[in-house]
């Protein structure tokens, strides 16, 4: 059997690379680990967070995980994957390091064998990038607008109506309403400071869309996928599986070979470890920046280091005193509520941005460790303060810097380091964002500096280059330099990363790259 295209990876890039090919009638094989999440993620009593807390004896299954594995003993971030794999999402990282050997040097990089990739633990924050941001990514002169529209239509994006084809925004909660008031009063100050507060776009439904329902506003998004309202790439793959021209092979790809106008792909079947070879006219690599590079380096026998970009971030616990002693809205959601953007960056893009989350439903047990009181008091103090608590996930725009990724004896080795200058730049951005938060009436209490790579957003291993100089690079259409039939469609091709969420752009760009093969 010879396929038109083989797509490696089922995450945001893989799913949306395969979709237009299937729609155009091409025969497509997708190869990916394909681990499926436990049923409990989709089984949730139709109750709000507070109602579940008050009435369900079995609530621990969602909050601590069915196997109790989500008690965060490894500190606030809980080690690799941290908070994003809370509840029952640990499967997202399961077995990945065993089957995809990795060495980390100051780099808390994660990889996934889940169906839908790291998108299975995605917070759904989305952004439509400006011209400057696309240029920053390396997509200069490329009009992504039509692709954004198609993705938005296909997966359902809600948010401010300044973009076509979006659904109405999720309702801003009491925290954000209070901040918005102050923002509007002090708008002149914010303009002068080059700081901007906006409501985010999210890959979350606010109106029903086929089998997927609008977000029920039960504040359980963190622990489950209620009504499938939050988009997961696995949904697209499940949809594709019903098409006769789509095949899926649960396997880990080891290498490929380009010969006689065809690509042969060698993979190891999940579970059995059996080696299977598939053949196709074209190969699209969409396994994520780490594993796309792994496959390319392994296949091409390159052992020199390639560049690697990881979006840096920190968590700041923010106290919003106006909300102390307030119960807050009953109907709400747990995802990103608002963005505070420091627009004073290089190349006309933002230097950093804070995604603001209201704390309530994330579990007090996650923060008691950082309150310097004996445990019962820490728990009650956390309960007292939690209505006024927000978490700011502050991300910085990222350059390749001194990071590198190389392949050595079958193991990927990633090393990350930050120059003093970059550190200074981040500090400055952090100060400015903290200043903006204070102006909004929210006080940064404690900032947790997180290891490089822990944001799980990676790029830059196969960057776009007009004239190939690097050992590994591709052109604007994703075609890997020096290869006829090999394309990359994921964030590997982005040269740098703006601080704002780029997952939507991965999907739009993957769709664009794959459409070039039709």
């Amino acid at each position, binding site marked *: 059997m010879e396929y038109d295209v083989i797509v490696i990876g089922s995450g945001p890039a893989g799913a949306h690379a395969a979709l237009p090919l299937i729609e155009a009638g091409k025969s497509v094989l997708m190869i990916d680990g394909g681990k499926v999440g436990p049923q409990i993620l989709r089984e949730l009593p139709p109750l709000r967070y507070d109602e579940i807390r008050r*009435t369900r*004896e079995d609530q621990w299954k969602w909050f601590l995980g069915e196997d*109790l594995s989500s008690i965060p*003993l490894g500190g606030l971030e809980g080690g690799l994957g941290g908070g994003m794999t809370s509840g029952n999402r640990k499967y997202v990282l399961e077995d990945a390091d065993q089957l995809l050997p990795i060495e980390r040097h100051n780099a808390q990089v994660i990889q996934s064998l889940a169906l839908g990739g790291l998108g299975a633990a995605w917070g759904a924050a989305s952004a439509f990038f400006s011209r400057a941001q696309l240029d920053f990514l390396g997509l200069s002169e490329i009009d992504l607008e039509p692709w954004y529209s198609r993705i938005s239509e296909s997966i359902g994006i809600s948010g401010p109506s300044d973009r076509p084809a979006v659904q109405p925004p999720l309702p801003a909660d009491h925290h954000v309403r209070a901040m918005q008031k102050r923002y509007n009063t002090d708008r002149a100050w914010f303009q002068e400071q080059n700081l901007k507060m906006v409501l985010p776009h999210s890959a979350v439904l606010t109106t029903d869309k086929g089998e997927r329902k609008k977000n029920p506003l039960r504040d359980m998004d963190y622990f489950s996928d209620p009504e499938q309202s939050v988009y997961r790439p696995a949904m697209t793959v499940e949809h594709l599986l019903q098409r006769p021209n789509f095949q899926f092979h649960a396997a880990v790809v080891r290498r490929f070979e380009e010969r006689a106008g065809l690509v042969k792909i060698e993979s190891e079947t999940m579970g059995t470890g059996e080696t299977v070879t598939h053949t196709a006219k074209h190969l699209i690599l969409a396994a994520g920046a780490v594993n796309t590079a792994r496959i390319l380096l392994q296949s091409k026998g390159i052992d020199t280091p390639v560049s690697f970009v990881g979006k840096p971030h920190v968590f700041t616990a923010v106290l919003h005193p106006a909300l102390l002693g307030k119960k807050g809205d009953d109907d709400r959601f747990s995802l990103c509520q608002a963005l505070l953007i420091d627009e004073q960056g290089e190349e006309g893009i933002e230097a950093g941005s804070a995604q603001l989350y209201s704390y309530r439903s994330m579990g007090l047990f996650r923060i008691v460790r950082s309150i310097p009181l*004996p445990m019962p008091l820490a728990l*009650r103090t956390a309960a*007292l303060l939690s209505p006024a608590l927000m978490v700011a996930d502050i991300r910085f725009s990222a350059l390749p810097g001194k990071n590198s990724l190389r392949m050595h004896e079958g193991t990927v080795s990633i090393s990350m380091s930050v120059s003093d200058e970059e550190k200074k730049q981040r500090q400055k951005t952090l100060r400015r964002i903290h200043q903006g938060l204070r102006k909004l009436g929210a006080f940064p209490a404690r900032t947790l500096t997180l290891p490089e790579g822990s944001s799980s957003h990676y790029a830059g291993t196969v960057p776009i280059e007009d004239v190939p100089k690097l050992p590994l690079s591709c052109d604007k259409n994703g075609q890997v330099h020096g290869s006829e039939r090999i394309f990359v469609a994921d964030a590997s091709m982005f040269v740098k990363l703006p601080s704002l969420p780029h997952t939507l752009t991965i999907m739009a760009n993957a769709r664009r790259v794959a459409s070039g093969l039709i």
Partner: protein
Amino acid sequence: MTRILVTGADGVLGRAVVRAALQKGVTVRAWTHRPAVSKTSEIQYIDGDIQDVVLADTATKNVEIVLHLAARKRDEPDSHDVNVDGSRILAEAARRNGVSSFIYVSTQSAKLKEQGVYAKTKREGEDAVRSVFPNVTVIRPSLLIGDTIDGLIGTLMSAVALLFTPVFGSGQAIFRPMHIDDLSVALITLALKDESKGKVMDAGGSEEYTFIELLHLLRGVRGSRGKTVKLPVWMGLIIAKVLSHLPHPPITRSNVIGGNEVVPMDVGEFRRLGEVQSRPLAEALRSAWQKTKIGKEPALLLGYIGAKPMPSLVERYSQACRLHNREQAIDTSRFLLPLQDAWTKLYEKNGVLQDKLLIAAAIYEADIHSANALLPRERSLAIVILQSILYGLYGAVMIIACHILFLFPARTRHGV
């Protein structure tokens, strides 16, 4: 026909004796004080007070041997009624119903000159039974050790955790501690022998310890570095008197006196007739201590966090500890825990105790009973501020207290 009636079958020794009997294929009738929670069809059950004449009659019908264990162990107001009158009533019923042998399990302290209430009533119980049932076999066991640590050994175990363990008097009293299972097997073995009838035997293990040596042994098991201090007997008697007003006094008059008088023991006959094979004491103590710590820990930690330690929570807590490889038991107590928490929060943030407390907190939070206490609700700002200040103050007191206490090097401070 049932061969053995065991009274006090719901006690620690009683349960072990019933187990031993069943293992030897001897049919058992078990007299429990409270109705047994889980019953098996192999055993006939009787429940109620031991002084109940009618029950005594029913219980001793069609029985060959009576093994009388039921007793009040602490010095309680009805100790005489249970230990003396109850024994007589049972012996009378046994004689009436033609029971062939009657084993009365007494205590080593029955031989003391200066007797507390327990020793005295057990001694009188021996006589009361003998007056009705002259061929009674009397067994006087020394200190007993179970699968977990409780009773007198439990009290001593807490005492050796202190910087100074008080010993009232000379501390030269002799003990031959023995594992409850070893005693149980021996009791069944000798109960089935005609040769045992009418004999009075000391029962104990193969190793002999003075009271002070025993404390030293326990200290080793616990890993504490305290010291023994000798105090005059009268001081102990005063302390026991004061403590006797508590619902469960940690030491009684009997304990004070019992730890003091030297009474020789001869366990030869008992060990021969009971065919006893004692296990090494230190090892038995160590495993019992581990089990005790692990057994009590969930309730202790959950209770400290604020949870009612219901079986479901305890089970979840233990499961989480297993999953996260935090099975090592914590050496702590209700009084020590807040101090150890405050100390480790500052100096051993990622130690076992803080990890276990986090597990307890997570288990507590993910449960309906914590919803009211922990969910956000409308409160006035003044109350929020006042409560925060109070929590802060209480925390500060604990932090100061743990520094004062743990800066003494004598105690293991990390709770492991």
